């Protein structure tokens, strides 16, 4: 990567530092997150043990991807679900294109995995109409921006800006009251759910033993997206597989607590398409929910990451977002420190999964390696150690920032950097 690429990144980061709206929004978000998380974790002390057990099962899957992919595919098919496995983004998109076709109305649940595929752009390019239905993601989509936090995509957008945006869509002046703004989105999206042909979501977990898809949410948009349309498509990375249904429930408890919730409002556990046998015991698919359920598991670099004994850990990530709120840097940079995946944990994910090593290079040198995230990660992911490993790989791949190379060369030659 050339110096000018690093300079471009530097300018973006420096510009964000001057953005007072972002700073204020993030300060509020961090304070409120900490309070909620501490309360949620304190009220359910056994979650400490649960997270340890979950970590073991996560590692079991990461260390045996092929076995669990086979098992999951088998279970999904038993449940009358169309199951697919894809190695690459291109293969995944081809599968989706084949199911979706053109001229469809699509409602989506928030999914960073979908960002990995640039799915919205592709769906539109194929002649479909796409609506993000999570409020934050809806705001981001309407702004033609990209998510700035793993869990709270519009974390950096103040209410004034949302009001301006929604007023434009509504054709009338809306207030800056979050209640009114949420009400507008609810009204706007209501008929999109009922008239959509297809719902597309990610997954929080997919169980290998029962082929069940776990989705957790607070808004109710995922419930709509997964039941109202005729077809539901799930797109998930292979690291979302957990061995058993019990592990799935454990995951949903751990991720909720560490994301700062006593309990999430809604949990969907979907094991196959909607069906009824109420007329003469003849099985009919698509009773009230989708007639078809498609689950696409895709790799896109995850197996490669799993081969590296240090980077492997990063695949445990539950996307609770705690590390970002606790990071000294992220609240100042938001998702500009990132590509599709952000912050410290986003560094290995960018290098191995979405973006590649060149994109990861400036990101790897934005982490202070302070280790604070490790203290708060329910999966005990040692991000500083992983970042060190990524830096080593950047060196091997000749992707280091030029000035870092110069500094290291000086130490080698002179014995000291300055």
């Amino acid at each position, binding site marked *: 990567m050339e110096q000018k690429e*690093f300079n471009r990144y*530097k300018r973006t*980061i*420096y510009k964000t*530092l001057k953005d007072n709206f972002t700073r204020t929004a993030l*300060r509020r978000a961090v304070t409120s997150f900490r309070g909620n998380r501490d309360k949620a974790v304190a009220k359910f002390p056994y979650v400490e043990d649960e997270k340890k057990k979950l970590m073991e099962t996560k590692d079991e899957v990461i260390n045996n991807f092929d076995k669990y992919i086979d098992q999951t595919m088998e279970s999904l098919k038993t449940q009358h679900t169309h199951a697919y496995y894809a190695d690459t983004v291109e293969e995944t998109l081809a599968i989706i294109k084949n199911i979706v076709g053109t001229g469809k109305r699509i409602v989506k649940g928030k999914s960073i995995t979908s960002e990995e595929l640039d799915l919205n752009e592709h769906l539109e390019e194929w002649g479909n109409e796409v609506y993000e239905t999570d409020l934050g993601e809806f705001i981001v989509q309407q702004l033609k921006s990209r998510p700035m936090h793993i869990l709270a995509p519009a974390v950096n957008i103040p209410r004034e800006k949302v009001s301006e945006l929604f007023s434009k869509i509504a054709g009338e002046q809306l207030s800056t009251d979050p209640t009114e703004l949420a009400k507008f989105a609810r009204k706007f999206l209501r008929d999109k759910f009922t008239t959509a042909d297809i719902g597309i979501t990610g997954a929080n977990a997919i169980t290998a033993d029962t082929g069940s898809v776990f989705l957790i949410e607070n808004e109710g948009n995922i419930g709509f997206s997964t039941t109202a349309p005729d077809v539901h498509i799930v797109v998930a990375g292979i690291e979302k597989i957990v061995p058993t249904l019990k592990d799935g429930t454990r995951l949903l408890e751990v991720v909720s607590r560490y994301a700062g919730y006593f309990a999430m409002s809604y949990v969907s556990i979907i094991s196959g398409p909607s069906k009824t046998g109420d007329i003469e015991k003849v099985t009919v698919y698509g009773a009230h929910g989708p007639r078809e359920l498609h689950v696409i598991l895709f790799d896109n670099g995850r197996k490669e990451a799993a081969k590296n004994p240090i980077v492997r850990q990063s695949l445990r990530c539950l996307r609770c977002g705690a590390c970002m709120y606790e990071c*000294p*840097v992220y*609240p*100042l*940079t938001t998702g500009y420190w990132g590509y599709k995946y952000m912050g410290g944990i986003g560094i290995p994910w960018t290098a191995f999964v979405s973006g590649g090593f060149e994109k990861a290079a*400036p990101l790897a*040198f*934005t*982490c*202070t*390696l*302070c*280790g*604070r995230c*490790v*203290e708060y990660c329910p999966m005990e992911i040692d991000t*500083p150690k992983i*970042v*060190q490993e*990524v*830096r*080593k*790989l*950047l*060196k*091997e791949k000749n992707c*280091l*920032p030029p*000035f*870092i*190379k110069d*500094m*290291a060369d000086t*130490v*080698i030659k002179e*014995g*000291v*950097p*300055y």
Partner: protein
Amino acid sequence: MIGVFYGCTTRSDERLKGNLEKFLEKAGVEYIPMGVDICCGAPLLLAGYQDEFVEQAKKVNEEIGKVDTVVTSCAHCYTILSREYEEFGIDVKPEILHITEFVKRLVDENKIEFKKSLDKKIVYHDPCYIGRESKGIYDEPREILDKIVRERVDFELARENSTCCGGGGLVRAFLPKLSIEVAKEKIDKQAKPLDVDVITSACPFCYQNLLEGSENSGVEVMDFLEIVNQAME
């Protein structure tokens, strides 16, 4: 015999170097200066040059092998010498002490005496590299400071929960304004509400970074040894 490992950042900052040498003189410590023309290797490790880091480490290990105890005032040198060398399979013979541990030891052995107390309210900033990133030196600096300042308070987020000053990981080399902004945010949002006169740390990177981040904040930044030296006057 004691070796004092200066480290590149302390060695090249007149204030920090002065504080260190003044302390050693006042304490009457006989020592061999080390780490003056040889770097501990941290920049190599942080830049991803792991093989070259090991080569550098071997050279440094040879130098520090001449003494029984190595004292350093740099939190980064400390972690490199005390933890990273071993992790890369290098057998480090001497005992490695951070300056805060060394001062504590001298006090415990009645080898130094404090005569004065600094009439200020201070907060101690835990450097990540003698805290979370190594064995967790949290008590020693606090014990010393409690003896030599009028009032010491802790950040709400302290010890293993302490937030980084922003100066680590080569970020200060790549994005200096970001590093300084992290320090500024810490001073504005964590130090000022405590109504302190001084923020102190025991790491040259934290010191330099907090100093720049403290501009116009009304909070003074002091090196740990600067306060110790004043108490020994």
